[in-house]
């Protein structure tokens, strides 16, 4: 597995620019979402297969740790979505954008847009968490 080592070292040490950053983010967010989705399908399925366990499952989601992870998940879904749209648009509709100025610009904008739409969600979720897990705010 020496290539795997090389690859990971490359991710960490090759000074790629916006493109490498968005590739890594897209991949991590995609995998993160997938992992969550798989778990989520399974836990939701308990409503039919093992209804007794559902409330245990949902309790895990309500823990603080999971609450924070969930905020991350939302970011993953937003970032992956915006960036996925960007890639799909470039690939299928306007390949002319695959050049340095527009790649660098759009990659940064993608991150900014994701953060902008994530921020209100983050506030709402943080509020939920604070209220329910720490009894704050009424």
């Amino acid at each position, binding site marked *: 597995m020496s290539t795997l080592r090389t690859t990971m070292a*490359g991710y960490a040490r*090759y*000074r790629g620019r*916006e493109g*490498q950053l968005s*590739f890594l983010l897209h991949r991590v967010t995609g995998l993160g979402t997938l992992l969550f989705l798989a778990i989520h399908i399974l836990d939701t399925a308990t409503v039919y297969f093992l209804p007794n366990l559902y409330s245990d499952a949902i309790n895990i989601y309500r823990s603080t740790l999971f609450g924070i992870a969930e905020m991350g998940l939302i970011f993953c879904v937003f970032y992956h979505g915006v960036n996925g749209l960007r890639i799909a648009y*470039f690939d299928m509709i306007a*390949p002319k954008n695959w*050049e340095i100025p527009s790649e660098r610009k759009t990659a940064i904008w993608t991150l900014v847009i994701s953060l902008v739409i994530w921020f209100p969600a983050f506030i709402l979720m943080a509020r939920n968490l604070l209220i329910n897990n720490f009894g704050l705010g009424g």
Partner: protein
Amino acid sequence: MQITVKIYRHIPGVDTQPRYDEYTLDVDPKERILDLLENIKGFKDGTLAFRRSCAHGVCGSDAMRINGRNRLACKVLVQDLDTDQIVIEPIIGLDVIKDLIVDMDPFFEQYRSVLPYLINDDPLPADGKERLQSQEQRARFDDTTKCILCAACTTACPPFWANRKYVGPAAIVNAHRFIFDSRDHGAEQRLSRLSEPDGVWRCRTVFNCTEACPREIKITQAIAEVKEVLASGKINYKGVQIGPERVGSG
């Protein structure tokens, strides 16, 4: 100006471990990185090994990782790096043979696999003269004719680091050069190679290739165009003329 240069040194099979040798040099900021290497080799350490020939970015010999990025040592000036700490390492994904020299054979093998030559079995023009091609058609593939096979792109590509069987951006660039040449009839053969599991689809549009290309080829764009042909089955040979290329020029 005083700078320190750290260079990766390793001869697999001879040295047990790679090491970094450090040199302190007094340089003119306008010097090329290649000039530093020549200087070190000539006056400090003759055992340092690297490739070079043309010294002005047209032969493709000296792709290496300079401060973490693939570039040609002869096309980067000290002042371009904006620092007095310079780290020079071999490109990633091809086996190091000695210091900054890597084994290029697999790279050329990939290049050959896309049939990088004009395929056209039609009879030549009866008058023995040129096959005609409009200026717009010529412009269509101009960008990808510039490739000097330096491997800076392929060895900057994360999917290639992981999977050396991936045909790589350089080979796709050279396939593009022929697929979009209106005189060529070999697109189908090339496309069938490129649609293989280790062909063009392994590109995840990371864009490191385009950033690294010393010839400023729009590599990711070229790759996207090849993908588009694979997806649609249609080749458009009409390019955009850059500038009012009025021919003959008086």
